[in-house]
């Protein structure tokens, strides 16, 4: 389930890269705001249905819930994953390095749905199992990439930093982390993009989020509901992903000029 960053992007050289996040975000807001008024268009999809506009909850509140769950999970995963990876690359934690690296790469093979499904029996229905499943699953790409990034830092560079009189903490903060930042950021992007998608599946275990209209639409055979949920969630994913792409570009240009 790896979602690697590649250098190919939608943006062509004559369009500034900042346009894409703004464009997706604008479309997202237009969807949230516009669907309740777009009954005519939605009616064309489902001429016979009783209702075509999703009324059980406003899309804005669903979006808020979705973002809340994903950001709480992201916060925990980023802090936890990076701390774990930093800990096992220090002198004292080095014993744990092979095990953690192996588990992080093995864990990538676990399907998110299976992780979500296994979290429910242990934790019950609702928002909590979703957050736990997202944390479990999202930590792995971050651990893996932080490990990879830190290990790629040249040994000579670290030695010269120590020789300059830097403390281990300074080496970590001023040398290792900045050099590993692009790889770590790629891991964060993977983790969050997957989590936005997985959180939507969480609607099946009783969490209220953007997956709701899709599930309701599939259950009732109402295409209009599906379109509302699917478009909103796709636009959310594209907005966040393009934001990260922009962030990576900024980081790359800063690193190359520094």
């Amino acid at each position, binding site marked *: 389930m790896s979602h690697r960053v590649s250098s190919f992007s939608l943006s062509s050289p004559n369009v500034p890269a900042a346009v894409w996040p703004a464009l997706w975000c604008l479309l997202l807001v237009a969807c949230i705001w516009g669907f309740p008024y777009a009954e005519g268009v939605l009616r064309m999809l489902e001429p016979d249905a009783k209702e075509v506009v999703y009324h059980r909850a406003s899309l804005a509140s669903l979006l808020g819930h979705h973002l809340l769950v994903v950001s709480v999970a992201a916060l925990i995963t980023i802090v936890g994953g990076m701390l774990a990876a930093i800990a096992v690359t220090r002198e004292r934690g080095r014993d744990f390095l092979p095990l953690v690296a192996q588990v992080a790469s*093995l864990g990538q093979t676990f399907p998110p749905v299976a992780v979500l499904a296994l979290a429910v029996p242990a934790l019950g229905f609702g928002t909590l199992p979703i957050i736990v499943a997202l944390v479990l699953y999202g930590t792995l790409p971050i651990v893996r990439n932080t490990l990879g990034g830190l290990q790629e830092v040249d040994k000579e560079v670290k030695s010269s930093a120590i020789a300059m009189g830097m403390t281990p903490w300074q080496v970590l903060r001023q040398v290792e982390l900045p050099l590993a930042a692009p790889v770590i950021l790629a891991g964060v992007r993977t983790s969050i993009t997957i989590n936005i998608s997985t959180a939507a599946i969480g609607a099946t275990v009783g969490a209220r989020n953007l997956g709701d209209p899709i599930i309701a639409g599939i259950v009732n055979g109402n*295409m209009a509901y599906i379109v509302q949920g699917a478009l909103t969630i796709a636009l959310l994913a594209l907005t966040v992903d393009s934001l990260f792409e922009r962030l990576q570009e900024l980081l790359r240009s800063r690193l190359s000029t520094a």
Partner: protein
Amino acid sequence: MSLLEALPRPQVSWRQWQPNSVLIFLACAMLAAIWLFDVVSVAPNRIVSGEGAGLIDAVGWLGALLVTSVIVTLVALALQPSRHGYQVALVGVLLLLLLMPFGLMVASNRLISGDTPGARLNMGMAYWCLLSFLLLCWVELRLRLVLLRRWTILLVLAVGLVWSLCATLGLEALALGQEFRARDAQFWRALREHITLVVVSVAISIGLGLSLTLLMRRYSKLQKSAFAILNFLQTIPSIALFGLMLGPLAWLAAQWPLLSQLGVSGIGWAPALIALVAYSLLPMVRNTYIALEQVSPDTLEAARGMGMRNSQRFWQVRLPLALPVLLEGVRITTVQAIGLTAVAALIGAGGLGSFIFQGLGQAAMDMVLLGALPILMLALMADAGLGALADVLRPRSDTARPGEIE
């Protein structure tokens, strides 16, 4: 040699003592888990959540003593690690793995009386913790001992055989087994559907991916836009893509009766297959592209010098050399497809995911497990199998795995 290594180091005697802290940590975690949490739980029927039972209630003093002493032995071995000690520790871990199903049998005899035939035995928190920590120990020992792949496979098979024998012979009360026996025909059909969907979608994406890559190599203008579109597709959440497939396919099936006679409709295998292929194309094309590009130009030049024609050079030199990286793409795609097919159950494509979503709908957790565990095992098996195949096909000198770190 760096400056640091040349500096004299203070030698303190207790510094020389290097226990294996990983094994000690894992063993202590196991001890804490089995003594603090419930090992099993017994429920009178399918929906009611069970009543937990601790280690002593479940397997008695003797069993508890046995398990604890094996784990304590692991700690003792980890204090003074040696190759021999690791081998003994591996035997200990295997012993525990083999004892676990017998523990369940003992627990079902002790806790379930004959007059409650429908009672179900569930594995508790401690049981799952013990299992996962044991697997972590296994991974650690395998890394320390540098076990060969064939030994690993053999031992895993042996443990799996004992577990399945126990499950069929002496564990009528186990909830997962009861759930399976209640719908075994359904289970095998779901498994078949799942595997068929994965295999067909991966096969299609190999074919499409290879031809797209060849087109991209011929018309380089295509490359940028093709990758952009594939990246774009990958970003859309799976549930959204599956949902969006419903409408157009339902419309197509309504327009052309021939299609609906073939079984194409908004619900079912057709939208699932299209979405799966759409998702599979990016990892497939990316790895195929990298694989074909990384073949060294010198080798190709040598092939030309030997008088090979263009097509010969492609089929006899470039493709075989690219095969390991190409297989890496197939591995990523397959593992991803196994997980996504589970989501496809939501749009009526069947497969093991249907157990997950039905179970979630009925709040029947055993049914959820019946879907989720085989999916997990399928993914792990596909990953290990295709990884091994790629290793076998890899040329000896080239051990680098491109695309390993994102």
